[in-house]
């Protein structure tokens, strides 16, 4: 006997024949345009319509999912705060090798003075302090106290200046001198530079009208003063929303003037506004001692004399850093290179391992408990299956917090389970089992909470496996067990795979339940992430930990695909 050619095969050969016609040249549509083009047009319209349909979701996912993840990845390496807050100091530190026993030179401290003054005005210095405190404790208070006292530096010189001529306390005098004549050429470059610097420092645009532009002549003559005054003018006009000409300049502007005059500005050719006063000041200040910035900072906070703090600042000056990631794997960046943290501060590797291990255990117990339930759901008659399904879904209708708290009541030493065991005489009153505030508690509570995520995919896969397969196997001579194990089970594996991935990924990122029932040994890495987000505010470290978690999940997913094959995952 000989089978007829199969129908599918026939169709296939028909198709081949039709495709032959394309070889004979461009085919035209009814209106004369090439067929390919009109096809493309038709398909494009279809694609656009499809795109419009998914657009809301796409935008939603981009805004709420992709963007935060990108932001998280960025934050985990971002470190611009140092160079944004202390740009001059960072530049000055380039010349300091940081390997010897010497502190940076006077010029670095002078740069630090101007940076710190501006940062303190903008209230940004403590943020930098907190940032650097993650790397070296004590820096936070160093910045905080210095910010409070930085305007005292150069007090004597300023007093001397103001004693020479009271005009140096007059805001209009300052404004006129810095602006020059109305028709004089202006140093707009300095204004733009300072605007950019303030914008970076304050993390905002700093756009807007200042009502001030320094004259080129005075800028050439007194560069420091003009820079400082311009920064003052920008800050006054934009952040404080005041009129520049009506505000007395900061101490930093006057210190800058003192420095400019000291460093021998040649005033002989200058005859603009304030020329007289400037010349008087230059000669009057000649016998004043130079400002000792280094000593002034060390007097404010002795930690400025600590070499380690300066090394830390230099080390974390680049705009990007691996510091958070190193921290997240129990390493630290030191002047001597990357080293592991002291043993009694190592916590993250252990937490990562624990999170993975416990998630696997939770996944395993979900499979063991969920499989029979899913099997029953798939095989029971509709009415009983519906009832069972409601029981499975019931936990979804209760708040997570309530469920977790219920487990607390169940598992605690004076709880329901222990009471029952004592009543049954299985344990004595003194030997009540410790089932909560440890790993056991977390595993039990999370298995319960995540069970539906295992059962539902398994059920939806199992419900597509017809009973006839098992019947066929049995009719072919297989026992109940063999027909289950060799025929039913392999077909339900995709459901197990889907449920496992779901449960594993959910549990790896869980944090409320471990927080409540986990005690100290049953908490996950996500509890530390939450701590750094909401409590310690070390968002960079939280982002690094989160990124590692994300990559761990991606790697596991990739491994699953390699070993089991992602095609073997079905949700129904």
């Amino acid at each position: 006997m000989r089978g007829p050619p199969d129908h599918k095969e026939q169709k296939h050969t028909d198709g081949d024949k039709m495709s032959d016609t394309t070889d004979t040249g461009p085919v035209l549509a009814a209106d004369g345009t090439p067929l390919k083009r009109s096809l493309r047009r038709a398909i494009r319209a279809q694609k656009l319509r499809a795109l419009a349909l998914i657009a809301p979701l796409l935008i939603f996912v981009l805004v709420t999912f992709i963007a935060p993840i990108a932001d998280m990845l960025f934050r985990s390496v971002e470190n611009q705060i140092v160079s944004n807050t202390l740009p001059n100091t960072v530049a000055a530190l380039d010349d300091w090798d940081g390997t010897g026993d010497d502190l940076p030179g006077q010029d670095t401290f002078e740069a630090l003075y101007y940076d710190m003054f501006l940062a303190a005005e903008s209230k940004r210095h403590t943020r930098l302090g907190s940032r650097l405190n993650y790397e070296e404790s004590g820096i936070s208070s160093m910045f905080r106290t210095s910010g409070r006292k930085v305007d005292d530096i150069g007090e004597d010189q300023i007093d001397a200046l103001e004693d020479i001529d009271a005009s140096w306390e007059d805001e209009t005098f300052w404004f006129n001198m810095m602006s020059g004549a109305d028709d004089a050429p202006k140093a707009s470059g300095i204004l733009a530079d300072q605007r950019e610097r303030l914008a970076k420092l304050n993390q905002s645009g700093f756009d807007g009208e200042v009502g001030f532009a320094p004259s080129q002549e005075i800028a050439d003559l007194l560069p420091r003063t003009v820079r400082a005054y311009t920064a003052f003018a920008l800050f006054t006009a934009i952040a404080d929303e005041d009129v520049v000409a009506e505000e007395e300049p900061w101490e930093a502007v006057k210190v800058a003037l003192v420095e400019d005059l000291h460093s021998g500005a040649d005033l002989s050719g200058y005859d603009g506004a304030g020329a007289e006063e400037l010349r008087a000041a230059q000669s009057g200040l000649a016998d004043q001692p130079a400002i000792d910035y280094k000593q002034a900072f060390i007097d404010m906070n002795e930690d400025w004399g600590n070499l380690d703090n300066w090394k830390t600042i230099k080390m974390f000056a680049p705009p990007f850093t691996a510091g958070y990631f190193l921290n997240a794997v129990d390493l630290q960046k030191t002047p001597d290179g990357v080293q592991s943290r002291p043993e009694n501060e190592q916590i993250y590797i252990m937490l990562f391992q624990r999170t993975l291990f416990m998630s696997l255990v939770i996944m395993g117990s979900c499979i063991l408990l969920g499989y029979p339930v899913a099997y029953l759901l798939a095989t029971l008659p509709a009415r009983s299956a519906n009832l069972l399904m409601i029981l499975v879904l019931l936990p979804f209708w209760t708040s997570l917090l309530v469920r977790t708290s219920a487990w607390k009541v169940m598992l605690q030493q004076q709880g329901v389970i222990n009471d029952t065991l004592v009543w049954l005489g299985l344990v004595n009153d003194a030997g009540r089992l410790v089932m909560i505030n440890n790993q056991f508690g977390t595993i039990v509570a999370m298995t319960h909470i995540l069970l539906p995520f295992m059962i539902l995919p398994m059920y939806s896969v199992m419900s597509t496996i017809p009973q006839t397969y098992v019947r066929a196997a049995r009719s072919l001579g297989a026992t109940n067990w063999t027909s289950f194990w060799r025929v039913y089970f392999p077909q339900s594996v995709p459901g197990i795979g889907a449920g496992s991935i779901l449960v594993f990924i959910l549990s790896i990122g869980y944090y409320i339940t471990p927080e409540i029932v986990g005690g100290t040994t049953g908490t996950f890495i996500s509890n530390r992430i939450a701590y750094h987000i909401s409590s310690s505010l070390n968002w960079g470290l939280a982002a690094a930990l989160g990124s590692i978690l994300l990559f761990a999940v991606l790697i596991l997913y990739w491994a699953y695909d390699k070993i089991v094959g992602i095609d073997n995952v079905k949700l129904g």
Partner: protein
Amino acid sequence: MKLTTTLMASTALTVAAVSAHAQDMADSLTLVSWGGAYQESQMKAYVEPYIADNPGVSVTWDESSAEAVAKLRAMDEAGNLTWDLVDVTAADAMRLCDEGLAMEVDHDEILAPAPDGTSASDDFGDMIVSDCFIPQIAYSYTFGYRNDVAEWNGQVPTEICDVFDLETFPGKRSLEKRPHNNMEWALMCDGVARDEIYDALETEEGRNRALAKLDTIKDEVVWWSSGADTPQLLADKEVVFGSTYNGRLFSLIAEQNQPVEMMWDSQAYDIDGWIIPAGLEDDKLARVLDFLYFATDTQRLADQAKYISYGPARKSSAPLVGEHAELGIDMAPHMPTSPENSVNAFVMNFEWWADYRDDLDAKFQSWLAN
């Protein structure tokens, strides 16, 4: 010269403030607090009376004080401030002030003087720990214990080191799952003088010493992270001894009649109060200032103590503290600030913790986990 400008500026401000007072005040207010009995006491003591006086005003509560610093920072980054007045701890207020997220205020200018004319800053005194901070209450971390523990043979704990005495006082204890206070208590009971505690904690030996002391009871400790945990654990007999906020223990003892007693020895003071987020709109700010002036006056703070056993932050409020609003108990003896309770109290060093929390926390957490 400088003086004149300052004067002029402040005059201008006052004029602006007064005119704002008269007309442009927002009629909604978003208050951030801690929820629970504490928020209830704020509601009863000053929000409800304020609304009664200003019928057009609506108040929304947000129970986010625990994450206030993180959320304010996020709001600042997003440029979208949705809170008007935030109740935070003193330490958080300092952090917010440092970061420029809270508004600096002149206490004498915006707050009512005491009835006898004492300026607000003198009336609040040391409680003003930061320029941004407007204190409300003094509370403390203290211990409660069950008074029905058979194994104790009739003895009761009287001092902080009894927490570490497992022989006389066997049973589980609950401690907060962070180093604050625990490290200090441990050093105190390991023989370190109180004024040397923070110096000791700056050194590796001091930290190890504190952890070693905690190690002696580690197996018997249940670690809590929410203020409601210890009262619950005590009521369930899960622990016999536990630290928490004194107000929680008061309600457990006085309102729920549980067989629990207070142990005031070495209670750790903390202060709670308002901060105004930086960058409020003018009309919002005007409303917030109007509310604050009312809500922090001597009578209002004294009224709050009718509902919860936290000490009013004004000295002038103390004599006005009366009886519990429902139970009719005299509240004064239940205040952490009452003379006999505060004998051996200590004040946590907020600034020190701001510098060293990261280091100590890493160490403490890995100690916990191992």
